Structure formats: C-alpha cells, structure tokens
C-alpha cells in the first residue's frame, strides 16, 4: 500500500522562517530581481517541498506545484486561444483563481510540464507524479467565447493536454495524474467528462494514469468513472462522505486514491483514526490496490500543518498494514 499526495503543497513556511518564494515574487514585482532569478528560487523551493514529502514518508511525491498560481491557469497561460481574466472564487473555498477566457481555437505550442517533471525527478529519491489540470474542470471554470458547449471546450482542452501527456511519457514520467474535481458538482455532465478524460488518456502506454476529484462524492457516476482509461481514481472521503456509499457494491477494478486525511482543515487526525479508516476501505478495495493520500492538495492549510498531516497519514497507513485485516 503506497502513500502519495494529491497536488499542491504550501509554498512558504510560517514565521519566523523566511518566506523565500513570497519574498522573491515581491522582489520580482518591484524589479529587484529578474524572472530567471525568481525561477531559480522556485526550483530551490521545489526541492525543499519534495524533501518534506520524502521526510514525511510519502512514496510517490509531487513537485508541490510551487510555480502554479492556482489549479487552473498554469498550463492555459501557455496555450493559444486563451486570455487570463479576473479573480474568481475556487469552488467553495476562500482561495481564488484567474478565470481563463477562451476567445479562439485552443492551440498547443510546446511542453510546459515535462521540464518541471524532469527537474523534480532529478531532485527526488522517490518517484514524482506529474499533475495535469483536468480538461473538464478547466472547461467548467473558463469563460467560453468560442466553442459554444462545455463538451466541445473540454475536448479542446483535452487535445491540448494530450500533447503534455505524450511529452511526459517521452520524458520518462511513470505517474501522470489529471486533477479534475468539478465533476462532483456537475454530475449531469458526466458524458462530457468521460469524453474529455478518454481523449486525454486513451491509448497511453508506459505510464500509469490517474484521475483525482475532491470536495464532493461520485455517488451515482462511479460506474462511468470505472469505465475510463485510467489506472487510479482518487476520491475525497473528508468532504465526500457519499464516496463510502458509492464504493459499496461497486466492483472497483482500479487503484483507489483514498483521500481520508482532510486537506482543508487544521484539525489533526490521529494515526489510529487513519488506520481504522484504511482497514474499513480495505474491506471494499483490496490493500494492494489502495493508495493513501490527503483528501485534496495541501495549500489550504499552513506548511507546518501539511507536513504534520502527511506524517500522521503515513503512520496510520503503516499501522493499518501491520495489523492483520
């Protein structure tokens, strides 16, 4: 049973530790350092947060998405046909993303994520998973002034992102994950969602593909998700209690990303709580197809809390393994 993360990791620590990345952005904005110097700091902070995940005992780490401003715009900024608009609340959080405005045909020019992944993997003793913004969520959280339907827009995003997937596979990445949470709030659009994920991952070989959701459950649409060409499905059991019901009676033939530890609250789980939950889920999905991760990315909590939560999660997972089911 492996442990992993869902996506982002807090970019800065609490005081009195220096907030290097935040300070570097301020300096760049004032013109005191160049974009290249800022990128250098981003690289160093990426190494730092990979090391924190490794220290916490995580088996498959991410690069912490340190360079990402939000879950939406990191790749779209570099695509054609898209302008980046104003701030919008991200789902039901108190965090905000810049809203992509699709004004023309979406075009892809060159790999965005492969370089980041190569850098992260070179600096990690553990496998690094690459994170893609899911095409459906991108479409759902964009202003569409060109395609005229959610499905067409999601497919256009998927086509562009497929180039990213292929570049990652070519670079040697073994774990590629699309974070596509908006479907839990728009279950009626599952056909468009399925079409987009299929376009994104169908026929990929040489790498494991994953699909993660959060902030809700997939009760009612799990059968459609289980038909998709992905190896791992990640579900949020902190905000999506309905996922327990969804799994009962499902024939879960994939690997489950079990998001039990709450990535949105500072209330600390105990290793015992985690172990009990893992044993409960192991009755529905066999342990060798379980992966334990937080319920979502960790930027919703302070850095120190994120680290502590990962440690407790790993302890809980190990504890569950040590006890015969």
């Amino acid at each position, binding site marked *: 049973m492996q442990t992993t993360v869902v996506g982002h990791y*807090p*970019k*800065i620590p*609490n*005081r009195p530790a220096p*907030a290097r990345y*935040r300070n570097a*952005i*301020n300096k760049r*904005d004032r013109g005191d350092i160049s974009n290249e110097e800022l990128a250098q700091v981003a690289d160093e902070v990426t190494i730092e947060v990979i090391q924190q995940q490794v220290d916490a005992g995580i088996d498959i780490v991410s690069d912490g998405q340190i360079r990402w*401003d*939000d879950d939406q715009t990191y790749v779209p900024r570099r695509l054609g046909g898209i302008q980046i608009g*104003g*701030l919008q*609340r991200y789902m*039901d*959080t*108190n*965090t*905000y*993303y*810049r809203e992509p405005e699709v004004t023309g045909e979406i075009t892809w020019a060159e790999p965005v994520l492969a370089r980041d992944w190569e850098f992260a993997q070179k600096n990690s003793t553990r496998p690094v998973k690459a994170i893609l913004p899911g095409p459906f969520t991108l479409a759902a959280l964009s202003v569409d002034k060109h395609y005229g339907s959610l499905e067409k827009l999601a497919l256009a995003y998927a086509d562009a992102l497929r180039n990213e997937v292929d570049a990652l596979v070519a670079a040697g990445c073994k774990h590629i994950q699309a974070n596509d949470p908006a479907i839990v709030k728009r279950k009626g659009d599952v056909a468009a969602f399925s079409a987009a994920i299929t376009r994104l991952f169908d026929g990929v070989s040489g790498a494991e593909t994953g699909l993660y959701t959060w902030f809700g459950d997939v009760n009612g649409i799990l059968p459609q998700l289980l038909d998709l060409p992905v190896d791992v499905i990640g579900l949020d059991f902190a905000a999506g209690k309905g996922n327990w019901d969804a799994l009962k009676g499902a024939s879960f033939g994939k690997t489950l990303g079990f998001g039990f530890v709450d990535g949105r*609250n*500072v*209330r600390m789980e105990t290793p015992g709580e985690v172990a009990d939950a893992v044993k409960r889920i192991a009755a529905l999905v066999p342990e060798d197809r379980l992966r334990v991760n937080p319920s979502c990315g960790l*930027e*919703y*909590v*302070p*850095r*120190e*809390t994120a680290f502590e939560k990962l440690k407790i999660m790993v302890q809980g997972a190990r504890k569950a393994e040590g006890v015969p089911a």
Partner: protein
Amino acid sequence: MATDIQTKNAGKRAATTKLITTAVGSYAKPDYLTKARAEFSQGKISLEDLRELEKKATQYWIEVQERVGLDVLVHGEMERGDMVAYFSGEQGGNAIKGMRLGGLVRSYGNRYYHKPIIGGKLEWPGPMTVEMWEYAQTLTDRPVKGMLTGAYTMVEWSFDEHYPSRRDAVMDMAKVIRREVEELVKAGAYYIQIDEPAIHTRPEDDFQLAIEAMHATVDGIDAEFHTHICYGEVEKVYTEMIKLPVKQIHLAFKNTDFAYLDLIDQYGYPEDKDLGVGVTDIHTRFIEELDDVKDGLRRTLKRLPPERLWILPDCGLKTRTVEESEQKLKVMVDAVRDIKAEMGIA
C-alpha cells in the same frame, strides 16, 4: 438573550435622505502605520504606541471623508488587517473566545493571510470594535457606521476544529456578533454594517443558514443594518439574498458594469429595503470619469427613487493608495451633487 437596548436608538442620522453617500469600510494604511504594525508584530513597539498611530490614521481618514463630503463616514479599519482575523486576535485585537490566529494560508497570487482557527466554544470576549468606533465618532458631527463581519463569513473563512457542524458554529458565532452589535448600539451607533462577502460560497447547501444567522444577529435591535456582499455569483443567490433582514444591501455594481440592474428588472427589489450602489471600481487604479459615474447613477435611478439609494465605491478601498482612494470618493460625491442638481433635489 437578555438585552436592555430595545429602547429607541438615538444615534446620529445622515443629514440628507436622498442619494446618501458613504464608503464600504476599509482604507489604505499610511506607510507609518504599516511600518508600526510590522514593528508591533516583532515586539519592537508597544500596543499603546500602535493604538496611537491607528488613531492618528483614523483621524486622517475622517478628515478626508469630511473634506470630500461623504454623508455617512466609516472609521477606515486602521486597526484591522483582515476582516475575520481581526476578531481572532490579530494585531492586539480582542479575540473572540474559542478563536485563535492560525498559520499563513495563501488566498491567491502572492497574497497570504493568517487563517483563524475555531478551537472551542465561541463566546463574546468583551467589546472588540467599540473603542475605535467611539473615537472616530468623537472626531465628526456626521454619523460613523459600526463595522462588523457577519457570522457566516466569520466561520466560512476560519478553520473549525471544534463544532460538529457548520450550522452549530455559525449560530454560536451569530450570538457573539449580536452581543457586539448591542454594545455598538449602547455606545450610540445608528448605522451598523455587517459584511457577508462569503455568503455565496455554497449557495445550494446553506444559503438559508446565512439568512438565519443574520436574523439571530439583528432581530429586535433598533438600529439600521446594512450588509455588503462582494463580487461573486450574485445572480445565483439574488432572489434569496434580498430576503436578508437588513435595511440595505450594497453590491459592487461598477465592477460588473451595472449588470445587477438586470436582476432588479427581472426579480424586483424589496420595497422595504434601500439599495447600496457601488459606482467606482476598487480594483482599478484609474479614476472613473465624472460622466461615467453619473451615467451609472442615472441608469440606477430609472429603477429606484433617490430616497432608496445609497452611493458607495464597489468595496473597501484598502488596496488603493491614499491618493487614489480620495479621488475615487471625490468623483462619486461630485457625480451625486450634479445628479441632485439635475433632479432639483437637496
């Protein structure tokens, strides 16, 4: 709840009844105050020293608002960094019992805040905003609004380690905020603004909870209550939002180029409420043209009469510079003066 303030509120009223001008709440902190706040958090200056400078800056903003000619003033929130964190002990503020300041969390871009934590039962800790309100009111003959954050937003923008449900936390928070409202009324405040910028976070799940919490906060208290609701998907919640038990709802009209007027056309606006109209965009540096602001006023006046309209910037001005803020207030007041002259009203 025991209350001894159900007597008639004798607080100051606006001197005019039509197109009353006011501001939303916050202003930029002068550089000396920003520096002092940093020094206070590093333990280099005392709370008394900090409070002195906060009062100096408050006096500055009261003078600006009088000079520009606003009818109803705000104190400017020089003592507050964040509208929720202030009530959990930020910068020497009086923390609500059960709340504490948490670590840094990013909200967007390079902006971070100390997200508060609800770790125990929420209880009123004694007055949190009264001293500053009283101070500001001594500086002017015009009414100064009392300024609070609503129970729903207070909980929504905090971590909750304690309560079994959001409802439990919000309803206890409403008791705390109500107690502070009572203190402001006792101190002589007539206009009390209770901001709920988080109200449309989860409209399908618990908008009714936000309305219920507002009832629990204000019902039976003789004061004029206003609420400010920030940008967000107002169109999704409009028909429920207008049921909030307050005299005035103000919205950021300018930022959406007055698209909210369509909502009024389609769904109406309650007869018993005033409307607060944001006429200058607080997210832009440039100052609106006088004619542009007047145009917005004219479009709004086609829907509602002047005695039911209050005129404001879209939101708090704390992200604008001192100079930009004064100019944005001035163009607003100038526009109102011109429109009143056109209409032949005082």
